């Protein structure tokens, strides 16, 4: 590139030399450097940043990026059984269409007047989630399900004034890491044992550990390992008998068939909305939700934005705005509840579109179909010589396959599956050493009977 010819950058409107000169003249400056007079010379960067030569032409940039992306192989190009908190689900075209609308994609923090659209869309998201969860209060999404779980526990701590959080023993390692780090100054985590045959919360252990200082009992339903926590009602009762809150972490895509936590005693429901019409994006598709009953004791402990509905000066017109804004860090800095900031609003809008497209029938059929496919896959894999299904009982979407009777580690089996075009389930040997050589398989509506049969046949082949 010539150093002599000035570049006019397409993304920088005033980068032509003539415009720059006119504007400098208008503000009475000799040169741009005058604007930086407050920056001491001692910390001025001398020279040019060592970055690659730019790809100024859009066509060159596209070629470069497509070259990089071409080194990836997507789950769509193979047969994938990966889940573990990131779900491969069908994404309706209308979801992608709406999230690509420039008015939503490129907006930010507008007011309820010029950005009424996002306020209404997010209020509707809250409302549809409220129907799914049978709860009256749902937040504008926070970052992800990990954050939702961690914040739910801190909310429980503030509501009860207590200092211990009891956590189910089958929680995933990454989520537990986030929770431990986040609640550390405020709550002590107490792990609850699980029953070896079923994975269910060990109620005896729970009963022995719960105390008058327990702020919350937290469990997942379905669990990280896929089984349904059939002791949910008893756990909620134990929480309430001890003055603690019951916090239930759920996958919202299960709620067409599974009862929402509110129906079996959950006080706070939380989770991730990635499964609701959002692509996996290599882990970039997450958004968190927290839901409670409509009680100011709960509502005033939310850190997130809560959009509410109101009237306007015109009859028949809805207006929207922030509910109880004074509780937020925007209003009160460190005196607010935790903090609020940019998180995952566009995913909230997208999940709303998804729920509206699915409707009640769609959510019911979807949940039922996932359970059937999962049960079928469990049955088929259990028939493969050497394989066992680790946990008894009813599952939703995910299940643990026990490879301990095979003479090869999961890592090697997964390499062999990969060579045959299959992404095998998550290797659990590091995360759950007690399970030995096991893997977490995920089955969703994207899988056909033929896909599952192919998995079983291929496993049989590589285990031979």
């Amino acid at each position, binding site marked *: 590139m010539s150093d002599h010819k000035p570049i006019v950058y397409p993304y920088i409107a005033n980068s032509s030399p003539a415009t720059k000169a006119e504007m400098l003249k208008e503000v009475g400056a000799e040169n741009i450097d005058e604007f930086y007079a407050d920056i001491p010379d001692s910390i001025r960067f001398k020279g040019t940043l060592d970055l690659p030569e730019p790809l100024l032409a859009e066509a060159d940039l596209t070629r470069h990026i497509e070259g990089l992306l071409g080194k990836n192989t997507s789950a769509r190009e193979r047969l994938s059984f990966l889940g573990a908190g990131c779900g*491969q689900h069908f994404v309706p075209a209308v979801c992608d269409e709406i999230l690509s609308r420039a008015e939503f994609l490129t907006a930010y923090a507008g007011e309820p007047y010029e950005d009424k659209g996002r306020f209404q869309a997010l209020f509707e998201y809250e409302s549809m989630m409220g129907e799914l969860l049978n709860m009256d209060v749902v937040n504008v999404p926070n970052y992800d399900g990990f954050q939702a779980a961690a914040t739910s526990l801190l909310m429980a701590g503030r509501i009860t004034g207590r200092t211990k959080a009891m956590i189910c023993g089958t929680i995933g390692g990454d989520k537990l890491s986030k929770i431990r780090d986040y609640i550390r100054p405020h709550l002590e985590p107490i792990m609850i044992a699980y029953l070896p045959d079923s994975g269910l919360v060990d109620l005896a252990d729970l009963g022995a550990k719960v105390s008058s200082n327990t702020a919350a009992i937290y469990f997942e339903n379905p669990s990280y390992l896929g089984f349904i926590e059939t002791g949910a009602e008893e756990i909620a009762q134990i929480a309430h008998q001890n003055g603690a809150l019951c916090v239930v972490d759920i996958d919202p895509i299960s709620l067409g068939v599974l009862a929402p936590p509110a129906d079996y005693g959950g006080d706070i429901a939380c989770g991730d909305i990635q499964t609701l019409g959002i692509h996996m994006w290599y882990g970039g598709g997450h958004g968190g939700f927290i839901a409670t009953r409509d009680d100011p004791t709960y509502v005033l402990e939310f850190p997130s934005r809560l959009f509410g509905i109101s009237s306007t000066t015109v009859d028949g017109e809805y207006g929207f*705005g922030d509910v109880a804004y004074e509780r937020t860090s925007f209003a009160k800095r*460190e005196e607010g509840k935790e903090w609020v900031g940019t998180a995952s609003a566009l995913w909230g809008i997208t999940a709303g579109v998804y729920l509206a497209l699915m409707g009640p029938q769609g959510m019911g059929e979807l949940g039922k179909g996932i359970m059937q496919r999962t049960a079928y896959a469990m049955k088929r894999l259990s028939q493969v010589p050497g394989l066992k299904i680790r946990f008894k009982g009813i599952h939703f979407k995910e299940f643990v396959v026990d490879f301990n009777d095979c003479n090869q580690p999961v890592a090697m089996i997964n390499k062999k599956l990969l060579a045959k075009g299959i992404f095998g389930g998550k290797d659990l040997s590091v995360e759950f050493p007690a399970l030995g050589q096991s893997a977490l398989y995920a089955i969703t509506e994207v899988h056909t009977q033929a896909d599952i049969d192919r998995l079983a046949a291929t496993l049989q082949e590589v285990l031979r």
Partner: protein
Amino acid sequence: MKPVAPKPTPRRFHQASWDEPVIFELSQPGARGVLLPQVESGIEQEVGDVSSTLPEALRRKTLPALPEMSQVHVLRHYDRLSQENLGVDLNIDVGQGTCTMKYSPKVNDQLARSHKLADLHPLQDESTVQGILEVMWRLEQFLKEISGMDRFSLQPGAGSAAIYTNMAMVRAYHTSRGEAGQRDQVITTIFSHPSNAACAKVGGYEILTIYPDPDGYPDLAALQAAVSERTAALFITNPEDTGIFNPSIEQFVAAVHAVGGLCVYDQANANGILGITRARDAGFDMCHFNLHKTFSTPHGCGGPAAGACGVTSSLAQFLPVPTVEHDEQKYYLDYNRPHSIGKIRPWFGVAQNILKAYAWIMSLGAKGLREVAEIAVLNNNYLLKKVLEIHGASAPYAKGKRRIEQVRYSWEQLSRETGVHSEEIGYRAADFGTHYWTSHHPYVVPEPMTLEPTESYSRADLDEYAAILKHIAEEAYHSPETIHTAPHNSTVHRINPEPFDNPQEWAITWRAYKRKAK
């Protein structure tokens, strides 16, 4: 025909106003928006209706009362709502100061939509994700060069999450030295983003907030009085949200280092200083960038965004896991980091925005980034001159000095003389198709307005925005009622705020509204 008359200034505008019902009111029982693949009969025969075997308490008895709509009706509803929203693509979005509302190139959005990224599962074998790992690794190298820091994590989901991550690393650092108990204070400034104070509070710290000196500069004497053996860290935005660069930043750093504290640079406002001055050169131990601000990824109505945390080599051991590493054969994820603070969010970061930021930097290079900074600053100082020509407006602090990339203005005089408040100017600005923002709370600057014109806007855009402000200011003096009753040309009219703070009336969901509105 006669020539069409010249257009008036400011432009005539009316936002789309579809008078759109709430989505539940559009429900038509029995309608379907999308159909799902049917479960094959082979599966049905093999396993039956599995969900009916759920225990009674865990089985959903009635389907969720979601709206029932045909596909086009869902689409139309949301398309209409989108038209009742302004994004950067539609408006001269200089009115959201501190947020760097720049153009997000369409090509980057288009590239990120590839199934080669959208449909990647984060647990895929590393051999199948070499492209995105390479992008992450390369973006880290860019950010190291731009900041001078030694390592980055791209894991945080946004700017405040990055501040939290830095706070967690501060805590881990002091814990590793056995000083966690002693160091229980974090110092920030009032013109640093509120999340610096709020995230540190979540981390268990007491917050000391430094106010500006009479010239609007962070008060060095106050900082020197605040530091002690209890100081864990300084979290400071520079340039601050006033657009004023702290000229004593090195002395701030020295004072904190002298007592054993760490210095954390909030670089949310880095857009005007790219290639001009770097966090490391000012002596900082950590910094963070907002990829959705400085590095152009779209703001998405408030996320998904992306944050990036930079640290010096001695602090790299505390970074979240995993880091992205590179050897001669491949890119890979490194979880073997025993001193790591652990996980901040699921997986590795907001990959699609990491790709967009990478593409943006690749499209500009070193000279382009410097051009971004210089034009952002030129635009800001140009707009400053135009705004100060408006009767009733002022730019408090640093009299006669230039600003970096934004300005916190005050309408104090206008408000005193007319009774019109800054928020109302924002309501009226909506009538001209623009967005406008006051400032974070508390309003240290009375009747505040914060404008940040970035590099994306043309001289004509800036003239138009200033003309709108001038028009509204004149209305304040001549017909304040027009402003008190604004907006007039927006989607909605003045909203009744009372339900929002009244637990008897607030309705955060439609079901709560149906129950409570009598």
